[in-house]
Every structure is written in structure tokens, then in C-alpha cells.
């Protein structure tokens, strides 16, 4: 037993950190209720109250993608709120006096953020398939999960950028505003087709719209458009730079 425990395990440190953080997130009642339950509830309400007729089926599919994206967006930003909380607890400082490198800590957090977007995506898609009877090819479901998962990365970085820069309370508020603002203007709650023309143009270039568009095109059986991918990559770079600059700033004080 002792021999097993004293064996050096340098490569598992990142994985251990990832596991620890995912476990902590899933034990957070707020996350489970608001991060997973809320998108599912909103999806079921929006698609089953009032909406009927020929468009109902298409709306059930597009709203499913929109709400899964909304759930993923919230979970991704939530990682940043958690980081601000870690800082307030002195936990990041404590990690700095362990053999973990700063790079491992940041990577572990970004990865844990990526993992915690999955439950929301899975819950909304399951509700779509089982309750709302959304039907797609198997490859479409797989591609949908994969694209929504990968596409959430810019928002994880945006959340981390806020979390490393701002206080816990401010981060919570800012991330909440980002979450709502990006979701609404990106057309995740209501289709951007309902927006006035100018707002619709703006919406097309917002990160959340491009993100959900990955899923909408997949649901229609098409590959995501080049503009969508380009716009999202642009946001990825921007938010990545923001996160890096926030992290560097905090490293001096953490």
C-alpha cells in the first residue's frame, strides 16, 4: 500500500485537479438547479406553451439547440465565477506553493469548465429527444454534442478572464449579465429572425449566436457556415487574450 502511494505520479496531477473541480461543481446545488434544471425547464415551457401548428416541430428542434447552447454558456461562464471564489479563499495562492505549475492550474480550470458544460447540453438534448420527440440522425446528435461542447470554449475563457480580474461578487454579476445578454442577443431564447433588421445583423456577429449556429446547421444536416466559424474563432482569440491578460495580472497579486 505504501509503495503504491509513494510512487511519483507527475502526470496525473492535471487529471486529479480536473476531477476535483468537476466533483465540486456537480456538488453545487446552485449549479445543478440553475445550470442544468433551468435550461431544461425553459426549453419545455417555451416549446409546449402556445406553440402549435406546422412550425412546432422545427421550433422544438431549434429551441432545443438554443437552450442547450444557453445551458452550456451559463456553465462555461460559471467556471469563471468559481475561479473568483477560489481566489477569495486563497486557494490559488495555496496551489502556488504546491508543485503544480501555473500552467497546469489554468489548464485544469479551463478543462474542468469544458467538462461542466456537458451536463447542461446532455440534459436539454435528452429532454428534446424523450419529451419533445425531436428526431435526428445518430451522427447529428453526436456532432451536435461535440460542436456545442467545443464551441463553449470561448465562453469558458471569457468567464476565466472575469474571474481572474474581478472580485467574487463582481464576477458573479458580470458573468450573469454576460450570460443573459449574450443569450438574448444571440437568439438563444427567441429566434433572431424575430428581431428588427439592424439588431439581427448585430446578432449574427455575437459569440453566442455563432456558437448556437454550429448546432442549428447541424440540426438541419448541414456543416456550419464559414462566417459562423470565423466569427466564433475571432471571439475565441479575443476572449483567450482577455483571459491570459487577466491571469497575468492576477499572478502578481494572488
Amino acid at each position: 500500500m505504501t509503495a503504491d502511494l509513494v510512487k511519483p505520479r507527475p502526470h496525473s496531477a492535471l487529471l486529479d485537479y480536473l476531477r476535483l473541480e468537476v466533483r465540486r461543481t456537480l456538488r453545487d446545488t446552485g449549479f445543478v438547479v440553475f445550470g442544468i434544471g433551468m435550461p431544461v425547464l425553459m426549453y419545455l415551457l417555451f416549446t409546449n406553451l402556445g406553440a402549435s401548428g406546422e412550425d412546432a416541430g422545427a421550433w422544438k428542434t431549434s429551441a432545443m439547440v438554443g437552450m442547450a447552447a444557453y445551458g452550456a454558456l451559463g456553465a462555461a461562464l460559471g467556471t469563471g465565477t468559481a475561479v473568483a471564489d477560489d481566489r477569495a479563499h486563497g486557494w490559488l495562492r495555496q496551489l502556488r506553493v504546491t508543485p503544480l505549475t501555473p500552467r497546469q492550474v489554468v489548464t485544469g480550470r479551463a478543462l474542468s469548465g469544458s467538462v461542466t458544460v456537458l451536463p447542461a447540453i446532455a440534459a436539454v438534448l435528452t429532454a428534446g429527444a424523450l419529451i419533445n420527440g425531436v428526431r435526428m440522425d445518430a451522427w447529428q446528435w453526436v456532432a451536435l454534442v461535440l460542436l456545442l461542447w467545443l464551441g463553449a470554449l470561448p465562453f469558458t475563457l471569457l468567464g476565466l478572464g472575469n474571474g481572474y480580474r474581478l472580485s467574487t461578487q463582481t464576477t458573479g454579476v458580470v458573468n450573469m449579465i454576460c450570460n443573459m445578454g449574450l443569450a438574448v442577443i444571440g437568439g438563444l431564447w427567441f429566434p433572431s429572425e424575430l428581431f428588427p433588421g439592424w439588431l439581427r445583423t448585430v446578432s449574427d456577429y455575437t459569440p453566442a449566436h455563432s456558437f448556437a449556429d454550429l448546432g442549428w446547421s447541424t440540426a438541419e444536416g448541414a456543416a456550419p457556415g464559414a462566417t459562423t466559424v470565423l466569427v466564433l474563432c475571432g471571439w475565441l482569440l479575443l476572449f483567450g487574450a482577455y483571459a491570459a491578460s487577466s491571469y497575468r495580472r492576477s499572478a502578481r497579486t494572488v
Partner: protein
Amino acid sequence: MTTTTPAVDLSTAVRAFPSVTAVDGVDLRIERGETVALLGRNGAGKSTTLSLLLGLDEPDAGTVRLFGERPELAVRAGRVGAMLQDGRPIPRVTVRELVTFVGRTYPRPMPVAEALALAGLSEFADRRVDRLSGGQVQRVRFALALAGNPGLIVLDEPTAALDVEARHAFWKAMRGYARRGNTVLFSTHYLEEADANADRIVVIDHGRIVADGTGDDLKRRAGGTLVSFDLAGQDSGWLTSLPGVTAVEIRGERASLRSEDSDATVVALAGRGAVRALRVQPASLEDAFLALTTPDLELVR
């Protein structure tokens, strides 16, 4: 060579902030296996010194080495564990999960059960960290410092805000860790704690080391003996001119004289009939500390 490299070696380390030079040319060498207390008032430079030697902060001048390496490298190699001031363990994990995680970031951690036992946490192992009392939380933070089985642990005011019993348990655990041949450096502003738990006391004041030795050394350095008696209405102006007296303090009716030659002082007092409730005692560590450090004006009550 390796066996003689000290665990801690600060050489004329300076760290200045815009408003204050927190560390002002500190030389500190700690051999392996020593237990050293860094004693000072609030704001004396204890935390900044510890930050420098943990690599959390960089000196403006001078060098800092742990086991002969730069602090970041020693930390990276898992040779250091620390209990930082004001840290609180993160919520929604159990004690065992947290100690296991931190231990496994080190190359050769001690078995988790052993770390928990040393810190007195065995019975709380599966409790969530956010559901522990203040004293238990402090023990968790101590367990995190030693989980990786590092050769040096640094504890920044480890017993602040603990009650007497928790404090007692804590120091017992610390001595247990030190007895294994490990090096321990802790900061405190409690004299008794430094005296009772360290082999050596380093007194820091205004960012400088003003004394370095055993508790007894410090007491000796503070200048011999304390002679006290009741003034009983007498004037006190003449006391400073008595033979041997280096300092006079009047508290209410009681006069305390610090004396380098208590015999001469007592004889002179007797000559003036000032012997009511006369007491002659060796200087305490507290006297030594007060003699060595100068209070900040704002801190004087």
C-alpha cells in the same frame, strides 16, 4: 555538499513597497531539521519574509534560496509545504479528498491516513471541509502543508484565532512533524508559542532581524533582572539614577526597574526605605521582546 546546504538561506533580502520597506536586508539561514519561530508584531515584516522565501513574491535586492535552489524550483520539486495566512479551504470537498489531492501533486507524498492522523483529522476525514469548526479547518490547512511530505514546512501565524485547546493540539501536531527530521519555520506574535515550540527564535522588527537565538539567549540579551516594588506615594523621579538601573516603568502604584546589577539596585532602594512588596525576578521573554522591538506609534494604546 547537499547535506550541508541549509533549508532556508536569505541573504540581505529587501522588499520595498511604496509606503513601507517591509523587508529591509534580512539575513536568515536555517539548517535542516531546525524548528524556527519568526517572531514580530503585526506589520513587522513576517508575512512578506515568508512570501519571499516561498517564491510568492520576489525580493527587490538580495537572494533567497531553499535547499540551495530558487524558491520556485524548490516548490516545484515538492520540497516545501506551506500554511498561508488567511487561507480557507475550498468548499464542497471532503477533508480526505482535499488532502489526497494536494498530497498527490508532490512526488513522494505521505500516505493520506498518516497525514490525517498527524494533523488530528482522522475522525473528520469524510466530512465536508465547509462543515468544520475553526480549529478543525486550521488543522486541514496544516494537513495540506504536510500532505506532500516536504522537507520544509512554512506556517504563517498558524494559530491565529484558535482557542487554547485547539492551539495545544496544533502545536503537538507540529512537533510531531518536526521530530521526523523536518525543518519547520513558523511566524507568530505570541511569545509563549515561540518559546515553547521552537529551537530558535528570530525576532523581526521593521523589516530587520533584531535578535536570533534561543529563548534563554534573548532573555539574557534583554538585560538581567527586573526589580519591582510599591511606590506607596513616593515620588519616582529619582529611580533612574539608582545604580544598575537601565529602564524604569511606573504602572499605577508599582514601579518596575530593569537592572544590570540587581544587588546594587536593591541595596540602594533599601537605603531609601523603598522596599514595600519588593520583588526581584529574571527578565521574561516578554521583557526581552519589548526591549528589542520598537512599537509603531499608531499601535501604542
